[in-house]
């Protein structure tokens, strides 16, 4: 589904990703964990080219999603056409929700399919209301994001991602900006989604969630993958136990 080989990325002289290889299978739920600055978010953001890697290869569904380095040794951005294809295939949920504040909840859900994928509004609207119903927010369809709690906003953002009918969804610390009492309502939705067979790549600090829901856990440190495998195995890794001991839970 997603295959990454030899990915490197640096900001100035600081190497953020060092030769990372990663393979995501269809229907797999992968949790990426590790301390701040390990390169987790950068890795995630490289998958849909919000961040352009310095070198390496990314394939989505067998299609290469960026060009080889040019003469100056840098990777150029994809041409717009392929970039649009990639982003219609792989959705993203952000730490800060990033709902468009000038549009209602319903309009937020319709933007992607109607504007980007040119779906007709009458066919997209019932789908949007369906999605909202599934996260218990159908009565908020005409509200503006500023009227919602953080947890509600993130549930809407998940609906927005689902509206693209994506092959996979990337989650960039989806609960880190939430008040503690709102974390579970979002994790519950994500658990349901995982059980439904959606391919998910999740950068998270929620150890319990990673342990219980993920098929595979990837532990990153200093821009590289230290350990990966089934949660039960990876959580026994000595480096991860050191890291986990710094967490309060």
């Amino acid at each position: 589904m997603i295959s990454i080989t030899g990915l490197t990325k640096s900001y100035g002289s600081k190497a953020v990703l060092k030769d990372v290889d990663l393979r995501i299978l269809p229907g797999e739920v992968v949790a990426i964990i590790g301390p701040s600055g390990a390169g987790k978010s950068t890795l995630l953001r490289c998958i849909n080219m919000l961040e352009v890697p310095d070198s390496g290869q990314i394939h989505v569904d067998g299609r290469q999603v960026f060009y080889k380095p040019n003469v100056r040794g840098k990777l150029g951005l994809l041409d717009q056409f392929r970039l649009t294809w990639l982003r219609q295939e792989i959705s993203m949920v952000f730490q800060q929700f990033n709902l468009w504040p000038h549009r209602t909840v319903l309009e937020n859900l319709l933007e992607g399919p109607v504007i980007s994928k040119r779906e007709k509004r009458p066919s997209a609207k019932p789908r949007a209301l369906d999605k909202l119903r599934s996260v218990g927010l159908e009565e908020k369809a005409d509200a503006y994001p500023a009227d919602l709690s953080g947890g509600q906003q993130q549930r809407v953002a998940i609906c927005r991602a689902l509206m693209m009918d994506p092959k996979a969804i990337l989650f960039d610390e989806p609960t880190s900006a939430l008040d503690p009492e709102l974390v579970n309502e979002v994790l519950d939705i994500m658990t349901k989604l995982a059980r439904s067979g959606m391919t998910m790549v999740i950068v998270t600090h929620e150890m319990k969630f990673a342990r219980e829901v993920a098929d595979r856990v990837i532990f990153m440190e200093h821009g590289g993958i230290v350990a990966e495998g089934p949660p039960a195995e990876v959580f026994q890794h000595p480096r991860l136990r050191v890291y986990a001991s710094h967490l309060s839970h």
Partner: protein
Amino acid sequence: MGISEPGAVAAEYFPIFLNGALTTLAIVAAAIVCATVLGYLVATMRLSRNRGLRIFAAAYVWLFRGLPLMLLLFFFYYTQPFGLTLDAFTAGLVAMSLNSASFFSEIIRAGLKSVNAGHLEAADSVGMNPVQKFLRVTAPEGIRLMTPPYINNCIIMLKESAQISVITVPDLMLQGQKAYNSTYNVMETLGVVAAMYLLMTSLLMVLQIAIEKKTGRKLGTTKSLRESVGSMA
């Protein structure tokens, strides 16, 4: 004609004043459109990754923000710049546009920079192309911040446009001058002219309030703030 009855000048010259006001409106409206387009171009150059464009834009702002409008008016009307003989209206329009674009570009630059980077990434993440992203996210969000200084600048343009009377554009100011030169009733003439200027600037202020209300309702206020304001009313 000597000293006239109260109201006589206003009545006799009203059609001429109205004509002047329409000329003022026409040149200011045209200048706002030109200056906005030009200002947008300069703003994007200023935010460009290309160093040459950035320097050009900064130089433009430095030059046209730093020169008096009156000087530009004289330059374009009297010197036949680049071999072109401009009529008074065109010279006034060019001078006002170039001058105002320097202010607009700074306002637009601030507006573009104020757009939340995360909201733009969200647009990327659903596969919008750059044009869609601009129309659906950048413009609506930027306009919210830009509206007050933008309209403020339009009001300044409308008032400063009185200067074009010195290069003989028959605007409201010039028609006023003509009227008191022949009637000697300065007080009454200026009163009518002033009322007409105030009417035009007031319309712009109403427009500003309308835009702020429309964008602010959705963007600026949170639920709790709106409720507390509502409960005070």
